[in-house]
């Protein structure tokens, strides 16, 4: 079988990444230039600064990706690029560079939804089997995505307000942790106990949507109240209580979704998928689902990277998805929503 080689681009937020992926499943190279240090100065990602960094990095990343994979432009089959969702100015750098490379080397261009990328990170470990479900949790997204067959993505639940990762960053700030806070809060949580019993929003609602802003407010109010009465709270317990509330809601909704939509695989992807507490909890819960395997996107591929875009891009390419020279960034790009069956089955 001839090698199918995708050159893929990812610039939706604060990572400039270019990768070469073989047959949609093998990483030949995955160059990631991260801007975290820069945005830490500001306590979060500043879009204009992110765009400026992307343009500094983009061509160097292309060269590194090709040379590390030991391939030339002539070897490539297609060019894949994230065109949304994300920061528009940041997306545009990747989209423009990808369009140039596709044009200059007469290659087909494949536009990829960033969330499809997060899900397809799993494919770089094992083939995805359908029907499948994905829980995508990151700084920008918290979504349950049902995939009845290859190439079909249907949202059955999403956050109504803050994304889970966003809530981590906000309560992290209150705990004095610099952006991105997820990893540190996770570590602190493992040293503490759930003593505060924060609310589990929408946990028992008849849908698969999430909400984290109430939890965030409850957390902040608790800390502020303690400050006012000069009481010192155990930070590890605070972190553990917050994390337990997030994990409970994510796990409960996911489990209910699995009851309504029996699938062969549950994929956990996105930046927050690196959370050890969440990984452990879902591993436990999946014990009860004998016909569903849990596919945890490996830690190295949970953050934004072009390898996952290449894995999704190869699949979309086979399904005939193409972009042309007019391809634009689509910052609010979404999968299709399907009306969930839950209301019917739970009567």
């Amino acid at each position, binding site marked *: 079988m001839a090698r199918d080689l995708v050159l893929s681009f990812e610039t939706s937020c604060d990572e400039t990444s270019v990768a070469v992926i073989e047959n949609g499943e093998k990483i030949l190279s995955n160059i990631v230039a*991260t801007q975290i240090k820069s945005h830490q100065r500001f306590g979060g990602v500043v879009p204009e600064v992110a765009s400026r960094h992307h*343009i500094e990095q*983009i061509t160097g990343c292309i060269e590194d990706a090709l040379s590390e994979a030991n391939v030339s432009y002539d070897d490539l089959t297609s060019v894949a690029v994230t065109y949304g969702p994300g920061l528009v100015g940041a997306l*545009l750098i990747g989209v423009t560079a990808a369009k140039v490379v596709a044009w200059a080397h007469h290659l087909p261009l494949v536009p990829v939804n960033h969330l499809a990328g997060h899900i397809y990170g799993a494919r770089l470990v094992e083939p995805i089997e359908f029907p499948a479900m994905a829980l995508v949790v990151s700084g920008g997204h918290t979504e349950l995505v049902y995939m009845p067959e290859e190439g079909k993505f249907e949202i059955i639940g999403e956050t109504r307000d803050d994304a889970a990762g966003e809530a981590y960053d906000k309560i992290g700030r209150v705990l004095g942790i610099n952006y991105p806070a997820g990893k540190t809060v996770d570590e602190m949580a493992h040293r503490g106990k759930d003593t505060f019993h924060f609310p589990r929003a929408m946990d028992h609602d008849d849908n698969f949507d999430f909400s984290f802003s109430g939890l965030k407010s409850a957390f902040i109010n608790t800390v502020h109240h303690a400050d006012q009465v000069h009481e010192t709270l155990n930070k590890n317990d605070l972190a553990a209580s917050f994390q337990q509330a997030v994990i409970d809601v994510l796990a409960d909704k996911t489990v209910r979704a699995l009851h309504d939509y029996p699938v062969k695989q549950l994929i956990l992807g996105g930046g927050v998928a690196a959370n050890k507490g969440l990984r452990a909890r879902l591993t436990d819960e999946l014990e009860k689902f004998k016909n569903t395997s849990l596919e945890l996107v490996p830690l190295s591929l949970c953050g934004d990277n072009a390898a996952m875009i290449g894995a999704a891009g190869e699949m979309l390419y086979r399904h005939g998805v193409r972009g042309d020279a007019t391809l*634009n960034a689509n910052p609010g790009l979404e999968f299709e929503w399907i009306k969930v069956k839950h209301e019917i089955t739970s009567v």
Partner: protein
Amino acid sequence: MKILAIDTSNRPLSVAVMDDSHLLAQTTLTTHRKHAEFLMPVIEDLVKKSDLTLEDLQRVVVACGPGSYTGIRMAVTAAKTIAQTLGIELVMVSSLLTLALNIQQPDVLINPIFDGRNQNMFTGLYRNKNGRPETVIDDQHINLTDWLNLIKKYDQKILILGDTDSFKDDMKAALGDQLIVADQLAGIPNAALLGEYGMALKAVTNVDAVVPRYLRLTKAEADWKKLHPNEDTHDYVEKI
């Protein structure tokens, strides 16, 4: 030498394909701001209409700023990626100088202006010498009052062009008959002139390191710098 010249610094988009100083094909649009959707199709179309293949291109000349941040990033991203991926030369030209190329008169000071909002401008001062603009005052981001203080010492006529609307009344009040306001057309970049001008310049040696000339820090960075005046400007991006 086959040259591709690109300017999307502001609202207009201008692209030209040249064979030395002969213009083969050009498109200039002012009707939209969707450079992201139009730039690549225009480039493809012009290369085709020039009866060239893209492998014939030898040099990209880009108006690299100042201008709209998104606009100059679009042109510079396209230009540096074309240069890198085709292995051809890249030449950067000031977007303000690109406008100055529209003025051939030898006896005036040429003052191209891009609106930086709130009475701020991106501007510079040029004069023609041997048919090419030379810099009198460097391109900069400056407020109108400070700019007037800089230019008032010259006694030649000063011709403003570009985004003159927000500034011409105040400038007229300060400079009187010394000020000439160019007509609208002179404020639209002409990629053919950009390509011809860039033909004689030295190509950049490190394409990967090329960034637009923003001439202005982002607000977040400027605020941060104020609080951290002694911090090294070290590299904030790392490959992992």
